[in-house]
């Protein structure tokens, strides 16, 4: 974990309210793992006060860069979106526990909305495709307008991306769990790695539990420190799994086995 004043190398609009931010942060790029995050301080003053957590969308050890994909939802992200190239931002990272990409026959990445952010870094770093029988990528969103530019961010050669939209304007007319049910054949050993809004993660976890698919989810929470000291980012864990009631997103996660979360 490092703290650096990272220069903004590039900031590009990707879609309405969505931006891709490239920062010079060699020490962080070097240590990064898929699913980890960084804390970025949007201002040098104290309003807003706290740094904001963002998943590592991508990084390059060689170029010494990290990339964030973010949606403007409030003050901090609004200020970031208006920042220009050359500005320096306080960045701490990499933080947290990322995806546990050990053994499985096939992997299914499931993303929703801005939750696709960590999936690029993850997909790029999965063991060579032939280590798995298949790498499936299933993405959901409200509409084609919203989902198309996000799906483009996952444009990796050889990776087939399947889409579902609530309004049917792109891909399957329905939700991402429909895609899972259609696609994830029962004859294989699947590992599901998922990131997206809470209701989607809940549905994904539920489906996986029903089908006996091991599943990891990347959770969000309000954070103050990002490094396990403030204890602000608590999420309930099921009774009797040894976590005394609460897990902490920044330190025990952000990626959890679905079974460790009290949905």
């Amino acid at each position, binding site marked *: *974990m490092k*703290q650096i004043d990272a220069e903004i190398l590039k900031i590009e609009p990707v879609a309405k309210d969505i931006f891709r931010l490239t920062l010079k942060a060699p020490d962080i790029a070097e240590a990064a793992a898929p699913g980890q995050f960084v804390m970025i301080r949007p201002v040098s003053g*104290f309003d807003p*006060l706290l740094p904001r957590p963002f998943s590592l969308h991508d990084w390059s050890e060689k170029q010494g860069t990290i990339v964030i994909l973010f949606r403007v939802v409030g003050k901090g992200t609004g200020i970031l979106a208006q920042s220009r190239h050359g500005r320096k931002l306080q960045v*701490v990272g990499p933080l947290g526990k990322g995806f546990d990409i050990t053994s499985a026959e096939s992997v299914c990445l499931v993303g929703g909305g801005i939750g696709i952010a960590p999936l690029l870094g993850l997909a790029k770093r999965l063991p060579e495709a032939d280590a798995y029988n298949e790498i499936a990528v299933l993405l959901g969103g409200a509409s084609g307008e919203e989902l198309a530019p996000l799906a483009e961010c996952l444009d990796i050669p050889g990776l087939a991306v399947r889409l579902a939209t609530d309004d049917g304007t792109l891909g399957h007319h329905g939700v991402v769990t429909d895609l899972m049910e259609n696609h994830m054949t029962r004859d294989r050993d699947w590992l599901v790695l998922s990131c997206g809004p809470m209701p989607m993660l809940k549905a994904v976890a539920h489906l996986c539990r029903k089908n006996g698919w091991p599943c990891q989810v990347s959770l969000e929470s309000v954070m*103050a420190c990002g490094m396990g000291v403030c*204890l602000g*980012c608590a999420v309930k864990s099921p009774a009797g799994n040894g976590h*005394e009631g*609460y897990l902490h997103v920044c330190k025990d996660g952000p990626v959890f086995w679905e079974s460790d979360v009290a949905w």
Partner: protein
Amino acid sequence: MVRGKPDLEIKIGGLVLKNPVLTASGTFGYGREFASLVDPADLGAVVVKGISLEPRSGNPPPRIVETPCGMLNAIGLENVGVEKFVSEKLPFLRENGVCVIVNILGDSVEEYGRLAEILDNAPGIHAIEVNISCPNVKQGGVAFGLDPEAARAVTAEVRKKCSLPVIIKLSPNVTDITSIARAAEDGGADGVSLINTLQGMAIDIQTRKPRLANVIGGLSGPAIRPVALRMVWQTAKAVSVPVLGVGGITTPEDALEFLIAGASAVQIGTGNFINPRATIQVIEGIEKYLIEHDMNSIHDLIGSLNG
């Protein structure tokens, strides 16, 4: 003339701190979490997260809300309990030569006493900081820190049960903080630290629910700094034991204000979240100020407010 480095040493009771910059309880974990950014042995001391007799799981989320230049927390004193603290958390600190101050909390005078007793026997602990902002469950639930008599009683009990320096951490949610500070001094405190958080609240106007599951939380951060500074100044005039200034300190300039007002040391809390290297930068900044102002010792600065 070649000048030496200024002397930053301060004393609290019999304890000598190499510099006057500490972490505030609950904002630096058990010292290990920040270790890759800050060597905890470089700090005056690490005040660890509040410890109770039994482990506590804390309040349900949401536990924190950002406010203008501040934050509210209602963690609910989640902690691993004294036993696990001593067996699992303390060794790292001891082995790394960290000056450790253990913040304790309880529901009754007896509980505080019991904690003091246990910690007195654990090697590697340099002082105890008593968080008296907790409800006195046996006496109707009013916090010890709101009543001079209760504050004196807790202090005296802790004092009796251990040989370590005892610091009483004061609540700012009172009419006259100096009366509580004097009560702590009467009870045998070796120092007082202030302020703990101001009680605050926030509401989500869309759901019309409190933003914290606990409804009320503690306000910390730069927003409260002027209040903390005022109380530190008043308290430093009212007691003769060292005062540790806490509240909204994030920069060397902030820390210098507290030292000038009469604090013998400062604690950095929320500042660690904003800038994890705040503590180290504050130590460096204080040193630089002393050199620039031709002061050989931190004691030339402490309480040097000009009329």
